[in-house]
């Protein structure tokens, strides 16, 4: 969103009046060597991102299976067969419901907590660096490492349950089919929050201080200032935060794989990416897995558009 303005503002070296006279206009631009400088990156993107992207769609429309390298086999076009198989699979349905539960918990919680904490961080001067660092630490740590502690904390006899005493859920958090997905959502919120706090912190710097001053003069309380100035002031950041949180949610793999022991209990915390791994790589059906990937990305796109409508307000 903001990038277009960056591009627009970009100055054109040599094009401004009064600079050195224009040298010969080359067909490839003034510094054609720029293409050579960009060549490795362009190649990288084409080979590792663009081509596989097309290939994913190709695989999803064909009867595709793994072969030894170099073996030429017939891979007939099967139309929407893989998609039909994916969409009629109850496990897939379950995983999408799970992601839905995840997003309903994770996205609002992330937006609310990160905005509140960023706002508090913006006010406080003492220990600011300490707070910033402590919020960011979970984000920079490998999920595999922190999952270990969460397993320990939320196990049957874990610290969380011993603190809760008799109100501890039974069966425990991660093996409880209603609580498994919310616990995963809570874990991811905790893990990613630091990044979103920083995003909001940056956005808060763009709200002119005078707005708060005049609102205070008008007698608006802290809460009204927050609601009427801060929240609309960081709207574009909120759009970005919801989008990124949604993408992270759709990408969920490590957490159901490790935290709930492979999407357990009984598939109550499977995620689409986990199913892609199971279907595509363990069971050797890359075609249905690719179709699931395409469906998932389309789903994320739709959700992102809806969110943009809701969060973005009228001006978007």
């Amino acid at each position, binding site marked *: 969103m903001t990038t277009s303005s960056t591009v627009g503002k970009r100055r054109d070296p040599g094009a401004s009046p009064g600079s050195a006279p224009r040298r010969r206009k080359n067909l490839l631009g003034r510094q054609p060597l*720029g*293409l050579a400088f*960009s060549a490795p990156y362009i190649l990288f993107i084409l080979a590792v991102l663009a081509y596989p992207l097309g290939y994913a769609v190709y695989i999803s429309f064909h009867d595709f299976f793994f072969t030894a*390298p170099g073996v030429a086999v017939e891979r007939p076009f099967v139309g929407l067969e893989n998609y039909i198989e994916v969409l009629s699979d109850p496990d897939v349905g379950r995983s999408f419901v799970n992601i839905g539960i995840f997003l309903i918990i994770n996205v609002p919680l992330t937006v609310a907590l990160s905005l509140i904490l960023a706002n508090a961080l913006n*006010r406080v001067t003492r220990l600011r660096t300490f707070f910033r660092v402590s919020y960011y630490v979970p984000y920079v740590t490998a999920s595999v490492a922190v999952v270990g502690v969460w397993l320990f*904390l939320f196990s049957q006899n874990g610290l969380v349950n011993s603190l809760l005493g008799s109100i501890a859920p039974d069966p425990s958090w991660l093996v409880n089919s209603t609580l498994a997905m919310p616990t995963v959502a809570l874990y991811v919120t905790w893990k990613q*929050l630091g990044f979103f706090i920083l995003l909001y912190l940056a956005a808060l710097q763009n709200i002119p201080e005078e707005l708060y001053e005049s609102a205070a003069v008008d007698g608006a309380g802290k809460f009204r200032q927050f609601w009427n100035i801060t929240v609309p002031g960081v709207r574009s950041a909120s759009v970005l935060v919801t989008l990124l949180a949604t993408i992270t949610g759709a990408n969920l793999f490590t957490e159901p794989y490790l935290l709930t022991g492979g999407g357990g209990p009984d598939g109550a915390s499977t995620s689409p990416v986990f199913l892609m791994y199971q279907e595509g790589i363990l069971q050797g059906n890359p075609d249905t897995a690719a179709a699931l990937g395409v469906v998932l*990305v389309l789903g994320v796109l739709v959700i992102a558009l809806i969110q943009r409508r809701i969060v973005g307000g009228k001006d978007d």
Partner: protein
Amino acid sequence: MAKDFQPTVATASTAPVSDDDTAAPRKSATARQRALKPVSFLLLAVGAFVFLFPFYYMFIGSLQTEPDTSVAGAFPNFGNITGQNYVLINESINLVRGLINSGIFTGGVILCTVIFGIPVGYALAQMQFRGRGMVFAMMLLVQMIPFQLLLIPLYVLIVRDYGLADSYLGMILPFAINSTAVFVFRQYFLQLPASLFEAARIDGASEMRILTQIAIPLVRPAIVTAMLLTFIGPWNEFLWPFLVTKDVAFQPLAVSLANYISNVAATAANPFGAILAGACVLAAPAVALFIGFQRQFISTNIGSSAKG
């Protein structure tokens, strides 16, 4: 934007104080502002506790002979301290091997990002050439492509077709050039005055020389930040190296620890102690690097996210 704001501010500040339920004279408004600081501070302190406690608990747990999950177990107990868990995890998964593999994977990605990313960043910021807009648009789009869509085709291509399973190259390839780092490089090169480069060109310096002798020395902090930013990706990455490496000799620590958690843990005498010990080893380098360079780290993220 700022123009739109001005009239609002003016009317707001000159308007009479009419909302009497929330109305307060100037003095108490600022007093209230001051009074709210402790609330913010308390909120932040609670937040910091929630964020840091699991790390503290990770470390304490890794030192316990017997896993103590009671509330008392959260405090250090000198009768229950041992280094045995680190020995135990090291017997199951070779920690040094894992760290070396993580290091090669991460180092390879950082190296490729610096070597190939800096010239692109420079070209995008300070060179005029056909297709520049396209390269820039591509760089932004790439960051939007979800990895799950690439999972299957990349697996088919890299593992099956190119036979790069259980190799560092296979691990590194999909992450080789970090597009966010390229964006950071571009932003920093953009801040340098274009006239500097024009002058060097008029003096007959080649683009390569301008890049290595003028541009790069001027953006050295950007290189540090981009390296840090690139570091966390591959160091913490689990899914891709997990798919590519079945051979223990090539597994990064995140993968071997995850395998330990999901398979072997049941057979260990103190699985939590061993898991937490492994977790500490995996977390320590990233946390230490981040705390050491926290200034660069935070400004990068703000810079790249706010502008992009």
